[in-house]
């Protein structure tokens, strides 16, 4: 059994590949199930056919669709979210930020750090200002707490998914 993980912001979806049936040298059938609360739900059979180096997919082995060409490993866009698909395991250090951690949602430059280490902050208080594409964006605290660590400097250019600051929740 092979497990897939989909990184959906702070939620992770876990999908099991439950069955693989090889029909011929160019046709394989997979059965996927979504794992939720230790139960299987949303089971789906997908047929994959390889023709001329391209992959075609179908749910019923009758109506075929070609996947648009794109690179592996796979990320895919679902309307307003860019999701990553990991096969088997999830590399450490990617996503999964704990509550209270401020992670860049997009690449940008730190314009101003508003809070100091040890500051008491409240939920949705602005802590850092990031500039990206001619616009300033306020990064707000998602919890009430105390600023524990500041990991970036003003003027620093950051990639997506970088931890900028940690906030310790207040009990």
């Amino acid at each position, binding site marked *: 059994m092979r497990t897939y993980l989909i990184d959906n912001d702070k939620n992770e979806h876990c999908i099991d590949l439950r069955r693989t049936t090889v029909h011929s040298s160019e046709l394989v059938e997979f059965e996927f199930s979504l794992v939720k609360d230790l139960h299987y739900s949303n089971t789906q059979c997908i047929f*994959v056919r390889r023709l001329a180096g391209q992959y075609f997919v179908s749910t019923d082995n009758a109506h075929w669709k070609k996947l648009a060409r794109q690179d592996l490993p796979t990320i895919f866009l679902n309307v307003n979210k860019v999701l990553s698909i990991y096969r088997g395991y999830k590399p450490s250090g990617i996503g999964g930020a704990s509550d209270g951690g401020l992670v860049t949602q997009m690449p940008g430059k730190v314009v101003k750090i508003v809070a100091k280490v040890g500051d008491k902050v409240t939920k949705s208080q602005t802590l850092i200002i990031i500039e990206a594409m001619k616009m300033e964006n306020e990064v707000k605290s998602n919890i009430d707490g105390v600023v524990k660590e500041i990991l970036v400097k003003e003027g620093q250019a950051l990639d997506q998914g970088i931890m900028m600051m940690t906030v310790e929740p207040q009990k």
Partner: protein
Amino acid sequence: MTVKRILIANRGEIAMRIARACRELGHVSVGIWTDFEVNARHLEFCDEWVHLPGKSNKETYLNIPGILKVAKEYKIDAIHPGYGFLSENGSFAAECEKSGIVFIGPNPKAIAAMGDKATSKEFAKKAGVPVVPGSTGAVKTIEEAIKISKEIGFPILLKAVAGGGGRGMRQCFTDEDIKKNFEAVGREALASFGNGDLLVEKYIVNPHHIEVQILADKKGKVFHFFERECSIQRRHQKIIEEAPSPFIGDDEVLRKNICETAVRLAKAVDYDSAGTVEFVMGEDRKFYFLEMNTRIQVEHPITEEITGVDLIVCMIQSAFGEDLGIPSQEWIKRTGHAIECRICAEDPITMLPAPGKVTGFETNFPQGTRFDNCLYKGLNVTPDFDPMVGKLVTKGIVRDVALRKMRAALDGLFIEGLKNNIPLLKIILHEEQFNKGHYSTSYIPTVKPQEKINTEFDWMRAFQVMASIEARRMGL
């Protein structure tokens, strides 16, 4: 005609667009490559490249001495600034002139006259172009504000002299409103801009943003290329434009009036290139001058599509003092209807810029589609530039056909990996009021199309992607 060497002081889709026009005219196009855009697609379409070192826009596309230095070194005859960057910088145009390089744009005097919002309004008034009625200077007392408001008619806007970006203004519908708000707005203005002076201006309810394309040569001939309606905006930036304006519709008297007003203003400033005169039009169909853009605009393709004239080619011809090949205004005819959607790297719901990497890019467009873009698989959209990556333009014999083609074109544009505004554009193109042509600049704040976007997780696609990964892994 002699072959000229034209430096394109811009990037992205407009650089590709200018390179195309240079090729058509037989000129040599020279692109700029910078250290952070070595793979830029526009470079593939220029005849030559020059390198501008530096890591920021200030050191590259905005670096006047740097650009002039490479221009001299590479024996450049003319510079096309595109839009943004140095396109409306009067001192850059003047510096070019001093260095003996042709600036492909209007003369520095025209840029200076129209560059500043306040002075351009004074200029327009003198040329007999209507401007938004209001006080001529700062209003000192409540009584004065009420008196002016009664003259110009309610509703009015109390506005900080030094204001901007939608801050430091308040709408007033009655005398009471003015009494209530006057001091508060003054305090706000003083706190935010350090200047508490206020202006009174007529408040135009549900305004339409309508602009007229102008083209002039060096011999004093000024033509207009009809109007464009650019009322679908977010963050005060246009996202959908169309020509002709559905609000003006078949009111040819109004159309003629607004276009000729724009020509009058262009003549008054001795305009000699491509430019745009922007107006606001109220629900009562009265229009007022807003500003003049002394450059080629992002949305120029829709005008090209309905008139069949290549504006950038004409702009280059005009800069070299050549004839535009247009005998008179009567020769400029419009046919059909064109719509443009700006494709931006942004979150379709929050409409905030979202840089990222394009991992897949495919197109399949209907007849009558034009896609000016700088996209390719592997393109890394960085936060350093504007998020616009392409302009999708469709043309139809009537508006409904252009809309139908646009819906099909949006369905035929596939961008993977990069968040983009296509889902939002699709909602607007299917929305009833937009389809009827009933919209103003308050469309996005009131209709809120972003709330109708379905963000449900597409499990079927996720399964399909996983299946293909698995199939490739097992060597199928």
